[in-house]
């Protein structure tokens, strides 16, 4: 499997990452190198094998439905790049 520049561009957009056109070729080359390592997976016979998503196959431990007291938004918003009157701000989105 190898990726072309268009695929790299599409993946970059999905990941909200920006690459210069000049970087794209070397990025594609690196990805292809890694993909040829990863393509070894194709050689495995995985018929009737269930995927393993959680090692140890645990069950979820659940939480009782009890609410904690309200937060002071200020405490966490000290770390925010841009806030106003208790809201987080981003450039205006058109809907």
């Amino acid at each position, binding site marked *: 499997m190898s990726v072309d520049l268009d695929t790299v561009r599409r993946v970059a957009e*999905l990941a909200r990452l920006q690459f210069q056109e000049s970087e794209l070729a070397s990025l594609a080359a690196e990805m292809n190198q890694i993909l040829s390592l990863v393509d070894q997976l194709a050689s495995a016979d995985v018929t009737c094998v269930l995927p393993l998503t959680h090692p140890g*196959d645990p*069950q*979820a431990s659940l*939480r009782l*439905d009890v609410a904690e007291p309200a937060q002071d938004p200020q405490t966490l918003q000290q770390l925010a790049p841009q806030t106003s009157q*208790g*809201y987080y701000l981003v*450039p205006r989105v058109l809907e």
Partner: protein
Amino acid sequence: MSLSPVSANAPWQPVIGLEVHVQLSTASKLFSRSATAYGAEANSQANVVDLAFPGVLPVPNRRAIEMALAFGLAINAQIARVSQFARKNYFYPDLPKGYQISQFEQPIVGAGSLRVRMEDATELSVPIVRAHLEEDAGKSLHDAFHGSTALDLNRAGVPLIEVVTAPALRSSTEAVAYLRTLHTLVRFLGICDGNMQEGSFRCDANVSVHKPGTPLGTRAEIKNVNSFRFVEKAIDYEIERQIRLLEGGGTVIQETRLYDAARDETRSMRSKENSDDYRYFPDPDLPPIVVTDADLERIRASLPELPEPRRQRYESQLGLSQQDAAMLAGDKAASDYFESALKLAPEQAKPIANWMQGELKAALNAQELDWSTCRLPAASLVALLARIADGSLSNKQARTAFEALWAGDYAHVEAAIAGLGLQQINDTSALSAIIDAVIAQFPEQVRGYQAGNDKLLMFLVGQAMKASKGQGNPQQLNQLLQQRLG
């Protein structure tokens, strides 16, 4: 693939599927302990987990899962004994993690159905494909700050179940009937407050049209309509729009549209990423949810009597009219009120229903109250009806007492009766004394009645009522007068 030719005049068949986001009325969020109360100060119910700080982890809310299971049982659905949360990945500022925790391949509730009673009393069984748990997103305010979109993440993480029907509805009428039935059901189950203004119950409609016998048309999705009336109008508009488009030789684009209530039209949404690749995968932070038979039995045993069996019981066992039964079973608060009154006076089902449909409903409407804030406790209604039944109050007197109780002038029925002097006079000798006085007072009318003018009896009864300050038992007065005067 149909072999018979489709006539150009064959009617267009609308095909509608509905997705409803039901906000669960848990105390805390689906994956964090933040409170879920509506209307809190911006970002005061958003903790580090909701805000997706580095290092935080989701822990599922047991009650939310139980509510989803209750819903599944109520629609006779297949319940997944093992279900899995999945990540739906996309970037939007109301989604702090950059992914929504939802369910994809293994939803907790599978295929079920909801029986819907139409206004003409026919029944429709609407197939529900699945209902899955997912977290709600925060709120974006686009016009509050110039040049910016403001984010309030209080709603981010509130539990939802998304209920998806098959594309089996054929008209806006069917769609609204289904939505009303679903709305009543979730309120009856106590899993959702059903407040559409506050966004507790949000409807998306997938609408397409086709000619029967041909493949289904391309569908458009109308998002986030927050009233039944608007759903009906939006669907009707969209059906019209698609038909006009197709008959004009155009094609329907698969897209998301918004309903504009002011203009009564649907509009294409601009910037939402319709073609995003969500890259669903099982959430590695959340091991599977396992549901045992014992869990299901416990939840099944805790389910309240559901609206449809309740309605049937009211009609067949209690003898209520179709209309009364439907009204009472269709509103949880009304039904609760009815049931508590019934508990105190099981033989009074019809009078209770009549008073609820009559005097109480009028009083509630006049003050824009609902059954949960009814000013006359069920016990008082029952006491009032008992007084009518034993003859100590006439219907008219009871209404007078009711008005005073409703206004808060008296706390109890007894106090109202005493305070207003409403005791009905049933005692024959007392009534006879009143009649004697009336006969003596109106000799002309007495002679007139005895001469054959029946109408004058009503006059005499009226006068007797007046003389008794309205407390005389009118039926008895009538009877006694007839006896006395021949």
